[in-house]
């Protein structure tokens, strides 16, 4: 019997993403497929990659709504900064920060509620940040493809430059994890209280 094992951390992430009633059965299905079909046919490295893609698929399905909102918020903020230049970014930054923090907390809360796992909140925050970053970068690239005249570049320079547009979303992984964990704490506690009532 093939006893090859997929990356432990990926298996742990998968279990965190799943509801308790699916944790053993779904991870067992993936392990069985990995050992009996994928690993013998593709070898260790490509089998591990297959496993990671499967886990990423579960993360995408669980967090795409929040990631889409986060990415959309970033793209909207970028468009406003480029097309309606200003010298005072305080109000815009306050709105962006509040919206992003709210998305992370909400994503974490719902993930913990669904999976009954506090760790799910942090994982939801990280996944939301990573997927949102990709959406944001693609959106910014599209904006740049449409608007690339001199006034737009002046507005880009005045709002932090292109570097900030493409790196800031990725830097949200850590605050995303923390705020997602906070949401997870709220969701996990709420779920526990709700189940005690019933």
């Amino acid at each position, binding site marked *: 019997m093939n006893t090859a094992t997929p990356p432990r951390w990926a298996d742990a992430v998968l279990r965190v993403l799943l509801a308790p009633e699916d944790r053993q*059965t779904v*991870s*067992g*299905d*993936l392990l*069985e*497929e990995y050992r009996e079909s994928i690993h013998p046919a593709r070898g260790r490295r490509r089998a591990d990659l297959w496993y990671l893609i*499967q886990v990423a698929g579960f993360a995408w*399905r669980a967090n795409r709504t929040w990631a889409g909102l986060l990415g959309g918020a970033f793209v909207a903020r970028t468009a406003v900064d480029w097309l309606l230049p200003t010298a005072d970014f305080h109000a815009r930054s306050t709105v962006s920060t509040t919206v992003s923090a709210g998305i992370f907390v909400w994503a974490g809360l719902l993930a913990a509620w669904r999976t009954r796992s506090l760790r799910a909140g942090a994982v939801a925050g990280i996944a939301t940040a990573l997927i949102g970053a990709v959406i944001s970068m693609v959106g910014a690239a599209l904006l740049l493809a449409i608007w690339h005249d001199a006034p737009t570049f002046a507005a880009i320079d005045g709002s932090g430059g292109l570097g900030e547009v493409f790196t800031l979303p990725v830097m949200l992984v850590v605050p995303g994890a923390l705020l997602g964990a906070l949401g997870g704490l709220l969701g996990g506690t709420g779920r526990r209280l709700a189940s005690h009532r019933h």
Partner: protein
Amino acid sequence: MAEVLGTFEQAVLLAVLRLRSGAYGRAILNDVSARLDRDVAAGAVHATLVRLEQKGLLSSEIGPGTEVRAGRPRRYYRLDPSGVRALNDAHAAVNTLWRGFKWPLKGHA
């Protein structure tokens, strides 16, 4: 007529029907991949199974695990009568759409 099933939902339900007592996650994943002739994500099949079970078209029960699964149990699915009705409705809807045409279509491409 009730809400018509999507193609992927039909593929999953037909896999459950085809596999009979062996309809568990991995077997369904492989059957759907083979029938659709493409790689299918386990997450997509899982999400569809959960949705179909919530709609009352499927039901499931836990079966024993095996050594290759590190003892993790299998969840076996079976079609409920409403699932059979939904598949019949989906087939009838396609037949209705195609009525009056001869397949394969010719000459209008």
